[in-house]
């Protein structure tokens, strides 16, 4: 029998393969890992795997949500364990191959040096990777798992058990009338909101930057400072102040500005359509300074030769803008624009702080201006519809990821890298 076979077979018990290869220290490490894995994690794995399959069988003894969490941790821990187990096999097999070829195995010292020199990045980033798994991957898995349960007010611990229901929750979103109509209403407005509000803020930003950057304009610094001010005030403060200004009954916009022009007060907060318009205007105000700043930077880096050449060729101002300025700007800030779109898609603050997603609409479980995130927030905190909210979160993430990927791939600025 070849050494590699024996070493691999012996590695079923971690470390034995290394012992067979006479690498005692390494073998001990693997054996130690193997033993301590079971000693330390026995309870967790025991409860976790049982829990994630059954989600509890008896009330009030079993708390389904905790069992689910434990189960997911158990799976993550098992994956880590299997990875080490795999390393153990690979190591035994490789060293077995070396022995079969009658080559010398590395001594303990060399192994250590190998680890430090070649494996250095892994050694250093290992701990943070493990933290990342529990701080990022675990919550994602947990909320994904919740979407496949029936966890809501009537199925919550400790009085009741949560059960796996497969795709029922997703089916509910698309088959139950009130949920379906709410979902598509909210999704529709979310898309409109994202497109219109972001385009508005980007448009204003670029326009302002181009205007302020005109060579003939004086007091450039003054205008720049003024235009950046909206960005300097914390967003939530601006939103709350605007909420006061837009207030139907005592807001300055109705009472002073519109009244000055002799116009009737507009129901900014209590009418769906006007609320939407107010939100889009506010986001334009909040969002343009950033684009303005970035664009100003880009404009200053466009070489003057281009414009001079264009002038000699007799190009009009608009032709110059269309063929020189715009392409240069878009090339440089396209990734920033895309992130602005994804940011607004999930722009919870402005929706929630303005009028809480209101006004309420008949035949809908969301408010008239609720976007997907704020609706999910309401479902979770006000209606205890945890599984539904989790399912919506998945749909939302799929949507955002798909669009972001598609956009990024189409963008020239990334192709050139």
């Amino acid at each position, binding site marked *: 029998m070849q050494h590699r076979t024996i070493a691999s077979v012996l590695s079923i018990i971690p470390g034995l393969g290394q012992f067979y290869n006479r690498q005692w220290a390494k073998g001990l490490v693997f054996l130690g890992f193997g033993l301590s894995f079971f000693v330390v994690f026995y309870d967790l794995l*025991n409860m976790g795997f*049982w829990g994630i399959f059954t989600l509890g069988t008896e009330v009030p*003894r079993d708390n389904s949500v905790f069992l689910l969490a434990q189960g997911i941790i158990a799976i993550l821990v098992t994956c880590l364990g299997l990875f080490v187990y795999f390393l153990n096999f690979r190591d035994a097999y490789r060293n077995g191959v070396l022995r079969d070829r009658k080559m010398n195995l590395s001594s303990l010292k060399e192994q250590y040096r190998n680890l430090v020199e070649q494996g250095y990045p892994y050694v250093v980033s290992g701990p943070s990777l493990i933290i990342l798994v529990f701080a990022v991957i675990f919550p994602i898995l947990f909320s994904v798992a919740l979407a496949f349960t029936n966890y809501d*007010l009537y199925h919550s611990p400790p*009085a009741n058990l949560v059960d796996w229901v497969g795709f029922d929750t997703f089916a509910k979103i698309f088959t*139950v009338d*009130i949920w379906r109509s709410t979902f598509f209403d909210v999704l529709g407005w979310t898309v409109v909101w994202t497109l219109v509000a972001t385009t508005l803020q980007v448009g204003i930003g670029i326009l302002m930057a181009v205007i302020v950057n005109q060579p003939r304009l004086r007091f450039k610094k003054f205008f720049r400072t003024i235009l950046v001010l909206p960005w300097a005030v914390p967003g939530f403060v601006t939103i709350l102040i605007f909420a006061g200004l837009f207030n139907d*009954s*005592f807001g300055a916009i109705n009472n002073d500005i519109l009244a000055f022009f002799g116009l009737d007060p507009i*129901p900014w907060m209590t009418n769906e359509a006007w609320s939407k318009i107010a939100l889009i205007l506010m986001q334009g105000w909040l969002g343009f300074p950033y684009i303005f700043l970035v664009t100003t930077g880009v404009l200053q880096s466009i070489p003057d030769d281009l414009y001079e050449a264009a002038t000699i060729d007799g190009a009009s101002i608009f032709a110059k803008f269309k063929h020189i300025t715009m392409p240069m700007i878009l090339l440089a800030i396209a990734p920033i624009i895309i992130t602005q779109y994804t940011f607004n898609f999930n722009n919870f603050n402005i929706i929630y702080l303005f009028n809480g997603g209101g006004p309420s609409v008949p035949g809908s479980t969301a408010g008239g201006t609720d976007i997907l995130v704020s609706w999910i927030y309401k479902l979770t905190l006000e209606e205890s519809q945890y599984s539904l909210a989790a399912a919506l979160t998945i749909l939302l993430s799929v949507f955002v990821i798909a669009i972001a990927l598609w956009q990024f791939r189409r963008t020239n600025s990334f192709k050139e890298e």
Partner: protein
Amino acid sequence: MKVYIKQLGIYSIIALFFVLAACGPQEDSGEKAGGEQEGSKNSEYDLLVWEDVEKSEGIEDAIQKFEEENDVTIKVVEETYAQQIEKLRLDGPAGTGPDVLTMPNDQIGTAVIEGLIEELNVEEDITSIYTDVAMDSQIVEGKIYGLPKSVETTVLFYNKDIVSEDELPETLDDWYDLSKELTDGENFGLLALFDQIYYANSVLSGYGGYIFGEDENGDYDPSDIGLNNTGAIEGAELMQEFYTEKLFPSGIIGEQGIQVLDSLFSEGKAAAVISGPWNVEPFSDAGINYGVTKLPELSNGENMSSFNNVKSYNVSSYSENKELAERLVEFLANEENSKVRYEKTKEVPAVASLADDPAITENEAAEAVAEQSMYSEIMPGIPEMNSVWDPADAALETLATGKSSPEEALEQAVETIKGQIEANHGNDK
């Protein structure tokens, strides 16, 4: 060769799963059952009590007495009472939760469905000392889940420098007339937040409107919503008058309205406001010479209703000492300790006999609360209530701003509420 190793790996993984999956439940049940019999893990105290913020001095003496009588140690921690249930959800299973806690009655329905609080086996002679309204708020589907600690309800504060006690209008219509006299754009008569269902229900329900109807067992029937019946519409029309006649300042509508109302009264610009006992101190601090009385009568002879907020002591279902915890609840909520608590915290107790006690009748605000409590109703504690607030407030706000007629607005609100209830609570029950 590699294939061989792969197979090995797969087999060992399968073996591992078998080993793990086989031993789950049985051991677990043994383990946990054993754990419970050990009794209190904590050697520091036998019972943990979560009391409302700044209210623990009210039960200090009672706790001490209970400790001596039963030879136990009790730890009292202050937590915001409206958030205690939320904290219990996490602290309970973690073993750091309280044995006795306090909460507002509108959370009891949810807490019972989730199984967070324990049913109490109290006798008739204990429950009978409380006012019916207060006690009813602690009963879900015929079972008792807590004992009332205090009641709070909205009352009328009036400025004695503007309206004297003798010529105080008795009905809402009289107030309406007085308001017309007093209102000049700077000063106002009676102010109320009629654009919020919490306050508007006082009028709606006086004319026969209701949020949820009751079935024959006295439980709420969420399919029966009476916010758009003829009585409710009559009430809504009356309330709309106050707005259309500009008897209320425009700023009083909406979420910020409560600040406008409080400040107008504190500045002496409003003759009267409908507000709660929480304003007793702020108004005194503002130097207003005010009186407190029950809400006025309506044109049909009914007194204006109001929502009763009952705070209660309840036993956590995570408690390991439920019997002792229940005895402590009974002890804290008994007549004697309720009175001591009232004297120290000024929260009006729910014990019926104390309503005539000099300690309460001497205090105008407490007496007004006690008197108004007789005309008040419980805020529905069922989870469906969550779906009522937003649509109802939105409808009342469109009424207040005059953008729609009462029928239209209330009809739409009820439709919205019904839809939300069906979606959130419909098929799961």
